[in-house]
């Protein structure tokens, strides 16, 4: 008997039957456990259904060769987006569950046990930041930035694939936690000593540590990749001050990733050292100091906020300028503001813990630094307003999201300044006011931007437009839903309602919590509307094709190529003479012209190494979570082995002959010549084939 147990332990580590939520629900059939089992069931069934469908349709080869092993930055970008959408769906359902719990649980325990509730807010936060926010922006940058600077790919395509699959691996760990064991209850920030062994001996915090570590490694490599791409791979004549604003923000975000992500990696790994090796970095006893963790975490955490928001600012700049049919107002100002925000973001981390007992001057200095960030941010908002001034504004879906963002974001800015004032922060820190504030920054700031970018670049990626009707329905749901969901939280926070609480004791909170629940449901409807939009758009794609590639009469280089773009992006690397290069080419009749002569183009060959590295690393970390040491060993050996093997491969590029490039380009030019130029008024009609009518001026 003992022997069998020992064998089991070697094979499966800490994993037992009771780790499965289904068994737990069977043994203890409470609502909370049944919900957990249901979630686990959805993951298992979802995985089986996906695998089954792919097998049924015989698509494995297609998915493997065209997508998973692809090193093409555009496909990697799209895969990031798919990951983000899957994770977003889960985290949003969790948000609705939490809202239901809080609306119900007033002087009664409600549906969810405190432990389950703790897991929900932890996974919700962890997923939304690391597996929704980061993949969304990484995906959009991956797709659009190389096109905007006239590059054929990012600087390190193979490393790009590793980053993607490591992030996917982290996502798999988070999904696995629904089926095997449980997740941390320590919140997305995972403060020790609560997450130390003494207080949480289970697998929860370990899942958190390794999922976040994987994502942070991926983010660090992504940062290096993007920074070098912008620095070195700009096409001839694309000087710094000619870069589109989105590229500027991508560059700043990349720099922030390079410098801000290491503190997170250090924080999680030192916590792992405490938990696995019995060290004393953040423990209560033997000289541990939990304040080190808090400092490390926010040394990452604050720049992270700007990692998330800057690309969205870039998207708003592109969208507002395009749909106002006008140059961006105050380009230089915007660039300076972006750089200022990136720099200042490193100087404010302490405002996340004004309440930790520093001296008043220290708090005041960090409070003032925080307010200083408000200046460049405010400047940006006004820049967008003045971009619309004397323009011709079209209220398309991305523009609507941008407008809603401008108005809603400043409310978040106001609550931000309130929180930056230490004496007020003492009152509203750790309350729902804080929750409302950062959702107010991240939903209108980041998510609206990402949705706008998704709508804006979708025709470029797939060759057809998204449904405008469903876009508008989604818009209404997202905006009304946001206000309903978070205005009540501001009120409750001012009343001292703490965050992360599974139960309330004041009946007067109930109406607010019910309104917030309605808001959350509406936001969920907004996400559903986006899914329907995608479905409807695919159905009617024959009426919305834009093969010529410029459906919005836009300005950057990415619109000067076919939609979808060829593997090598540009048949000939474009020569850039000024800002908004493509716009000027259109104005001067320089667009849609064949090149003088075409050359062979080298693109990276597909490689399965990225997939292997990412999934093997995830397997290794899964082994570490459950103390399945053989799995951890094999996973890490496979990871390192793959990287080494790849370094011995010399045949890694594929050459596309000049003749093929020329044939493809000429065929596209013929399409462009045959297409009917559409004026801006008709851009949402089937007439729009992606060729904009030039407006003389």
């Amino acid at each position: 008997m003992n022997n069998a147990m020992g064998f089991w332990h070697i094979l499966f580590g800490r994993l037992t039957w009771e780790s499965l939520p289904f068994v737990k629900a069977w043994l203890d059939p409470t609502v909370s456990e049944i919900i957990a089992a249901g979630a686990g069931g959805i993951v298992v069934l979802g995985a089986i259904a996906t695998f089954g469908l792919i097998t049924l349709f015989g698509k494995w080869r297609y998915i493997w060769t065209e997508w998973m092993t692809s090193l093409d930055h555009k496909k990697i970008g799209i895969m990031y987006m798919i990951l983000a959408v899957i994770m977003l769906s889960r985290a949003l359902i969790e948000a609705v569950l939490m809202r239901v719990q809080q609306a119900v649980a007033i002087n009664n325990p409600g549906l969810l046990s405190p432990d389950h509730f703790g897991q929900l807010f932890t996974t919700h936060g962890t997923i939304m930041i690391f597996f929704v926010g980061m993949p969304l922006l990484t995906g959009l940058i991956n797709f659009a930035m190389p096109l905007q600077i006239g590059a054929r790919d990012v600087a390190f395509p193979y490393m790009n694939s590793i980053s993607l699959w490591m992030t996917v691996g982290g996502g798999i760990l988070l999904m696995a936690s629904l089926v095997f064991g449980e997740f941390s209850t320590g919140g997305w920030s995972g403060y020790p000593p609560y997450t130390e062994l003494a207080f949480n001996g289970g697998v929860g915090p370990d899942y958190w540590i390794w999922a976040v570590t994987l994502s942070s490694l991926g983010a660090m490599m992504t940062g290096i990749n993007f920074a070098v791409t912008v620095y070195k791979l700009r096409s001839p004549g694309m000087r710094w001050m000619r870069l589109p604003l989105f590229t500027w923000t991508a560059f700043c975000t990349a720099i922030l990733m390079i410098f801000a992500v290491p503190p997170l990696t250090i924080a999680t790994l030192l916590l792992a050292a405490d938990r696995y090796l019995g060290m004393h970095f953040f423990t209560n006893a033997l000289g541990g100091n939990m304040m080190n963790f808090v400092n490390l975490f926010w040394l990452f955490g604050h720049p992270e906020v700007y990692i998330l928001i800057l690309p969205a600012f870039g998207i708003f700049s592109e969208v507002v300028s395009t749909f106002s049919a006008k140059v961006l107002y105050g380009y230089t100002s915007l660039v300076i503001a972006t750089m200022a925000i990136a720099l200042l973001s490193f100087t404010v981390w302490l405002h996340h813990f004004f309440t930790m007992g520093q001296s008043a001057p220290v708090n005041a200095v960090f409070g003032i630094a925080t307010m200083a960030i408000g200046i460049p941010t405010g400047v940006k908002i006004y820049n967008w307003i003045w971009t619309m001034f004397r323009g011709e504004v079209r209220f398309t879906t991305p523009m609507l999201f941008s407008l809603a963002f401008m108005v809603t974001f400043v409310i978040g800015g106001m609550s931000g300044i309130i929180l930056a004032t230490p004496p007020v922060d003492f009152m509203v820190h750790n309350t729902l006011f804080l929750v409302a504030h950062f959702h107010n920054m991240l939903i209108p700031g980041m998510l609206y931007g990402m949705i706008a970018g998704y709508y804006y670049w979708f025709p470029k990626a797939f060759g057809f437009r998204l449904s405008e009707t469903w876009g508008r329905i989604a818009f209404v749901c997202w905006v009304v839903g946001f206000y309903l969901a978070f205005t009540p939280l501001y009120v409750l926070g001012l009343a001292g309602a703490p965050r992360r609480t599974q139960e309330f004791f004041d009946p007067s909170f109930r109406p607010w919590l019910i309104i917030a629940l309605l808001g959350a449901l509406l936001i969920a409807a907004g996400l559903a509307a986006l899914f329907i939009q995608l479905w409807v758009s695919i159905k009617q794609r024959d009426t919305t094709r834009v093969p010529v590639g410029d459906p919005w009469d836009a300005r950057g280089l990415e619109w000067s190529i076919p939609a979808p773009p060829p593997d090598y992006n540009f048949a000939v690397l474009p020569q850039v003479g000024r800002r908004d290069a493509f716009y000027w080419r259109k104005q001067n009749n320089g667009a849609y012209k064949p090149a003088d002569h075409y050359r062979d183009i080298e693109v990276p060959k597909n490689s399965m190494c990225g997939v292997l590295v990412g999934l093997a690393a995830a397997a290794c970390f899964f082994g570490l979570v459950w103390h399945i040491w053989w799995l951890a060993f094999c996973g890490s050996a496979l990871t390192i082995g793959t990287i080494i093997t790849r370094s011995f491969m010399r045949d890694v590029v594929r050459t596309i002959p000049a003749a093929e490039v020329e044939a493809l380009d000429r065929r596209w030019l013929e399409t462009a010549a045959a297409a009917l130029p559409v004026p801006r008024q008709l851009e949402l009609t089937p007439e729009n084939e992606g060729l904009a009518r030039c407006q003389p001026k």
Partner: protein
Amino acid sequence: MSAEITDPELLQAGLNVAAEPREVREHAESDVLGFWVFLMSDAVIFALLFSIYGTMGNATAGGPVPQHEFKFHSAFWETALLLTSSFSYGMVSLSLKHTRHRIWPALWLGVTFCLGAGFLIMEVRDFLTLFHDGATPERSGYFSSFFVLVGTHGCHVFSGLIWIVLMGIQIAMFGLDQRTRLNLIRLGLFWHFLDIIWVVIFSVVYLGALIK
């Protein structure tokens, strides 16, 4: 062999790509730049480990204290070994630049490996003595931070050694082709970086303890 170095050559010192087409040159440059950027984020990691070590200076929790535990002699010899290995790697780079034959870089790479391995063996021996004396990472926050800081550097050296071996094999297999050269340049950056980190460790950790 000319002693004069032109400007573009200086930019890609050691790469010997000045004569190559523009794309190749640019590619090489961005590869090296990428590695510099990686080293910057690695430097951030060490900076943070140093600052944590700094805050943990007094967190010995009634256990062993560094000034009694450290073996300063062996730390000195470790420093000497690592600094010499940096010199020998410099010879790798020089032979890469100025000779066509693969034997010279390979030879100096071997010397670097021996010196690095010597450093690592001495360090591991030091660690074992510390363990024997009860100065383990579980004993106190101070020793946790010490072992993680110095150990992280040690791990870097270890991976550097593996990299040296791999480069040796690649030189044997592929000769000094473009990618091997690039990797040797990057390995060089890595190796010198580790040397710099060690100098800081020696000054902050060992000399710091000696001052106490």
